[in-house]
């Protein structure tokens, strides 16, 4: 039987980070993954990540995945693919299915980083072809280049739903709506806004009643629900669709941890049954550690830090990392984790419907929470949105970021220091011009939430320009006349593209500048080709 110092189960962001950390201190690590490619969920994440620089903010998920793999390789970590850990036995022995053989291996330390699986929602017609998990649809689109369907209803407004929803639009699908039984959109407002401005309706306090069709989905029936999740009479609505994406939550795949004898706890807010673990990631069984979604649903940034903590702790336990250096590392990682736990969507505040204000005391925009777009009135409450007086002076950045989410790349992006995210990275950005805004647009492309725009109300008498971040195909050429849409996706009218800016620094986010009547300067936020 083979014996390893460290066995990591799962080559996703948590597993690879754990392996990298342990290997960086000199340990010999093997990582097993059941898939034929490593990286877990990272490679299908084509959007820019949030957080701060240390959390790899602004990098697209798949790029982070590539970097992790390269570093693991450089450190001599052995990543074995098509290797399914199928059993966990006493004395930290695991059985690994590789092809037609079963390997028996033992580890001094084992890190379980097996991630999570998508939840299902059962309703009449859910077994028809066309009903897929949102994560599955994302894999189909972003890894295999196949559209899941043409007309798609997204069920679930959490981050998975709204992020995948936007990617479906990018892939050329028609997103016919986003449905959620809750009264508020549970994902980031900026993600919802990206979708709403293209014209997609949000149906909050609605549920899917049925998927209709003979051999595949042909239409969906949705209905409104009251506070007790009871269907409201007469509220049924039938929408033509060929695909239903279910984004109704994730559940930790913690079977191996339970099999290993780890003490488990059922915590609905964390996704279900999770292995109890200390801050240093060790479970109730000495030598068995957990990191990533398997220990509680969060996201990739948390997974990576948790993996690092597990790797460092093991290195310290085995004598590779001196205690004082370990403590420094641990505190650094712990602090990093607490930063991304801040804000309105943090693990301890998620789902709380009674939050009415931001931490700074700005009112939370109701229409952003229920319909996915910022209302035209009330913009003056947000410190990132310059007022009329400033706008009349010349080009200016308009930062439409109105909820506390841990994210601050805008601050780093501006070469003039115009955007400040003060104190905690979850604070709402403030537009304060240290030096005058030059309209370079770096902030527009840097914002992972596509929530920053350039507005020039001095372009010409009665005319303004609005520069938007654009990540759709095809990209229009200057001179092209299309339609300007407002935040709700309603057509304002015709608009002409004046310029199309691309650069390597902008990493595939194109800056589209359109000419609009002055009255639309604070309304036009999307361009339809």
């Amino acid at each position, binding site marked *: 039987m083979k014996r390893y110092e460290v066995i990591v189960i799962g080559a996703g962001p948590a597993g690879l980070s754990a392996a990298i950390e342990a290997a960086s201190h000199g340990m010999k690590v093997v990582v097993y993954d059941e898939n034929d490619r490593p990286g877990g969920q990272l490679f299908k994440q084509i959007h820019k990540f949030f957080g701060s620089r240390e959390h790899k903010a602004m990098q697209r998920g798949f790029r982070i995945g590539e970097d992790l793999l390269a570093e693991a390789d450089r450190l001599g970590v052995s990543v074995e693919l098509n290797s399914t850990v199928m059993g966990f036995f006493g004395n930290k022995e695991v059985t690994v299915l590789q092809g037609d053989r079963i390997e028996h291996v033992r580890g001094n330390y084992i890190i379980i980083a097996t991630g999570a699986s998508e939840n299902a929602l059962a309703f009449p017609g859910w077994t028809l072809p066309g009903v897929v998990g949102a994560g599955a649809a994302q894999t189909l689109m972003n890894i295999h280049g196949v559209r899941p369907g043409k007309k798609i209803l997204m069920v679930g407004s959490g981050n998975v739903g709204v992020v995948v929803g936007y990617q479906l639009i990018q892939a050329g699908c028609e997103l016919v709506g986003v449905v959620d039984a809750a009264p508020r959109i549970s994902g980031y407002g900026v993600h919802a806004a990206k979708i709403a401005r293209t014209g997609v309706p949000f149906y909050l306090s609605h549920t899917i009643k049925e998927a209709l069709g003979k051999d595949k989905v042909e239409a969906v029936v949705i209905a409104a629900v009251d506070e007790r999740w009871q269907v409201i009479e007469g509220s049924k609505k039938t929408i033509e669709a060929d695909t239903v994406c279910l984004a109704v939550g994730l559940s930790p795949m913690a079977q191996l941890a*339970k099999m290993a004898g780890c003490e488990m706890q059922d915590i609905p807010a964390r996704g279900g049954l999770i292995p109890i673990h200390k801050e240093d990631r060790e479970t109730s069984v000495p030598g068995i550690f957990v990191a990533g979604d398997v220990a509680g649903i969060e996201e990739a940034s948390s997974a990576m830090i948790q993996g690092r903590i597990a790797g460092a702790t093991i290195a310290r336990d085995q004598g590779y990392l001196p205690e004082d250096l370990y403590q420094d590392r641990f505190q650094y990682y712990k602090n990093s984790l607490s930063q991304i736990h801040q804000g309105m969507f943090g693990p301890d505040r998620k789902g709380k419907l009674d939050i009415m204000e931001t931490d700074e005391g700005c009112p939370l925009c109701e229409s952003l929470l229920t319909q996915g777009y910022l209302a035209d009135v009330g913009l003056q409450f947000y410190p990132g949105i310059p007022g009329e007086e400033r706008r009349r002076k010349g080009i200016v950045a308009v930062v439409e970021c109105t909820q506390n989410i841990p994210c601050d790349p805008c601050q780093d992006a501006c070469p003039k220091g115009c955007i400040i995210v003060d104190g905690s990275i979850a604070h709402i950005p403030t537009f304060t011009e240290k030096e005058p805004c030059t309209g370079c647009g770096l902030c527009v492309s840097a914002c992972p939430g596509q929530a920053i725009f350039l507005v020039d109300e001095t372009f010409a008498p009665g005319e303004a320009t609005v520069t938007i971040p654009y990540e759709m195909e095809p990209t229009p050429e200057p001179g092209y006349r299309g339609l300007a849409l407002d935040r709700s996706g309603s057509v304002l009218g015709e608009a002409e593209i004046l310029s199309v800016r691309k650069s390597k620094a902008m990493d595939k986010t194109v800056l589209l500048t359109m000419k609009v009547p002055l009255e639309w300067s604070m309304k036009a936020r999307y361009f339809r080709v």
Partner: protein
Amino acid sequence: MDSKIRIEEQDSFLSKPGDDLIICRCEEITKGEIRRAVHDGMRTMNEVKRYLRAGMGLCQGQTCSKLVRDIIAAELQIRREEVAITLPRSPVRPVPMGAYANDGTVRK
């Protein structure tokens, strides 16, 4: 709140609308079959699994477990967390018989 007494106090199993909804896709087990199993005395995930094969198909319960647990909980009028779950056993993924046959043999 004794779930055993509650079940016995009810009439014999009554069909409800929605009972024909498939819950375990791999084994094609309906909501009605699961509810009837609870009435037959199956109160835990383990019992329902062994009685109906719910969770024993290709996905090993990855799709249906939460749904089955909710149905049991609703039938017993208890919270989902109070329904005892199955103990995962090796193998957690389907394994070809050939792999088991090769286990313990020397690699050629």
